[in-house]
């Protein structure tokens, strides 16, 4: 792989000639983009309608007037300040712990010599092969037996435990980018193992951490299964779980639900749009590396 590392520069892309076939592709992709945006338009459109409009007029018709009341209802029903803060705390803390833990674990595994370290790598990787969703049942049982359910630290613990495999695997694949000579030099200077990690290795792994943090943050932010099983107290619920309860079977309140969707998607979209560069870089660095 390494010999192909000389990637094309971004400007390279624009250098391609704009021909008739490029225009055709542009046209097709525009149609695709419109199709992709259509559901988002429907959500927005619904979120501003009155209940009556929803039932009595065409779903594609624009609302007569913007019903901000739906948003007020959504904020109230979602208990937004609480659920948003909760989701944020769970995501941020889990991701930070994961970054810290996975980085150091993967590094120790790749630097340690002997069967144990090989074994521990395989041991962790088993976790990637088994998504936690397949084990939700006993994970739930363990949770309440160990008093982890309905606590903040409990769900964070579980997000860390279930995310650690992927993290170790990912960070491990980045370890070859850290030159051993640097570490050895540090060691000769009398750096302890831990110090070597934090002073030499840690700064070199920044792109890897970006990948890890972004990929895990996504999953945790949008997680439904674990959150629904682990935290159900009013003050501890997450956004996704709160929204799902708006959809439940009886008497769905669609206009409010749609407003709630907008409210919940908005923050992460804004985050994405403003940090897009880092998002994409982080996501794809790992992917291109394979």
């Amino acid at each position, binding site marked *: 792989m390494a010999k192909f590392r000389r*990637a094309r520069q971004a400007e390279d892309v624009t250098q391609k000639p704009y021909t008739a076939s*490029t225009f055709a592709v542009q046209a097709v992709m525009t149609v695709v983009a419109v199709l992709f945006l259509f*559901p988002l338009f429907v959500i927005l459109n619904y979120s501003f309608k009155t209940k009556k409009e929803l039932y009595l007029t065409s779903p*594609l018709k624009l609302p007569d007037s913007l019903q901000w009341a739906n948003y007020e209802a959504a904020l109230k029903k979602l208990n937004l300040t609480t659920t948003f803060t909760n989701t944020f705390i769970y995501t941020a803390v889990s991701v930070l712990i994961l970054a810290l833990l996975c980085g150091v674990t993967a590094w120790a595994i790749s630097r340690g010599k002997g069967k144990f370290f090989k074994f521990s790598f395989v041991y962790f990787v088993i976790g990637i092969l088994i*998504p936690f969703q397949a084990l939700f*049942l006993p994970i739930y049982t363990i949770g309440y037996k160990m008093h982890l359910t309905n606590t903040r630290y409990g769900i964070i613990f579980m997000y860390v435990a279930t995310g650690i495999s992927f993290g170790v695997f990912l960070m491990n694949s980045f370890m070859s980018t850290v030159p051993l000579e640097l570490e050895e030099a540090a060691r000769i200077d009398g750096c302890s193992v831990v110090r070597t990690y934090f002073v030499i290795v840690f700064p070199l792994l920044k792109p890897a951490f970006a990948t890890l943090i972004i990929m895990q943050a996504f999953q945790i932010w949008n997680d*439904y299964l674990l959150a629904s099983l682990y935290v159900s107290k009013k003050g501890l619920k997450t956004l996704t779980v709160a929204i799902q309860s708006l959809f439940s079977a009886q008497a769905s309140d669609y206009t409010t639900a749609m407003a709630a969707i907008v409210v*919940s998607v908005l923050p992460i979209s804004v985050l994405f749009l403003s940090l897009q560069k880092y998002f994409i870089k982080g996501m794809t660095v*790992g*992917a291109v590396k394979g």
Partner: protein
Amino acid sequence: MNKKKTMQDKMNRQYFLLIVPGMVIFTIGVILPLLLALRYSFTSWDGMTVEKESVGISNYINLWKDANFRQAWWFTIKFTIANTIVQNVFALLFAVALDSGIKAQKVYRTILFIPCLVSAVIVGFVWLKLYSNVLPELNEIFGTNINFLLFGDGKTVLRGLVIANNWQWIGYWMLIYLAGLQSVPSDLYEAAKVDGASAVQRFFNVTIPMLAPAITICVVGITTGSLKVYDLLVSSTGGGPGRASTSVIQMIYATAISGRQYGYGSAMSVTLVVILLMVAMIQVKGLKSKEVQS
């Protein structure tokens, strides 16, 4: 030599200490549940009583005979295969299209990516509304007669779910392919051009081999993602109509939790884990062989 060895031992000990915390957390959070599932799968526990009566392997024998469980697997497998094919093909196509020098590439990229910021629970609900209320309206406007009620019939529900799932995830995998494409050195294309290769030939002989790592990532990601499908179903079909779209995880939930057959549900979990492990092993092998090639 000897000195070096003791040095490495000393280091190893420190490395070991660094691994311990992660390992303990992982063991409690994932491996212990796995062992628990195994243990409960040999009982007839209902999830409530104190005593857990051992029933040997009868849960597994019953699973073998359970038509509903087979159906859940069948659905999950079909869903996984359909997603793996459709998502990879379209993600790659879109990536190539965006990489072909069209204007405002970033705008398209953003638009296609946004759906994957949305939780699958929400995606399911939105597509439920789209299929049953919004899209049929298009028939009225254009005078067409397309069947949009995909969730309403066991024969079309898979198609409907695959579309919804693809809407959500294509942009994500496309991004990975796009990054892969952009890392292909342009001199390779030029060399192929000089050799007189057509655009199609260049795509299959240069692009695809160069994308091998990205393809592996995407295939593995989409397969495991689809096998564990649950969130998408919760707020859309709920496993219906009938049992047409009941996934394995959903079946485990219904059996062990709503149906109070915890032991039996645990046996289902164990089989799911075994199959996931097998699938993953095969894929890891494939990944290894590709690494050797490059």
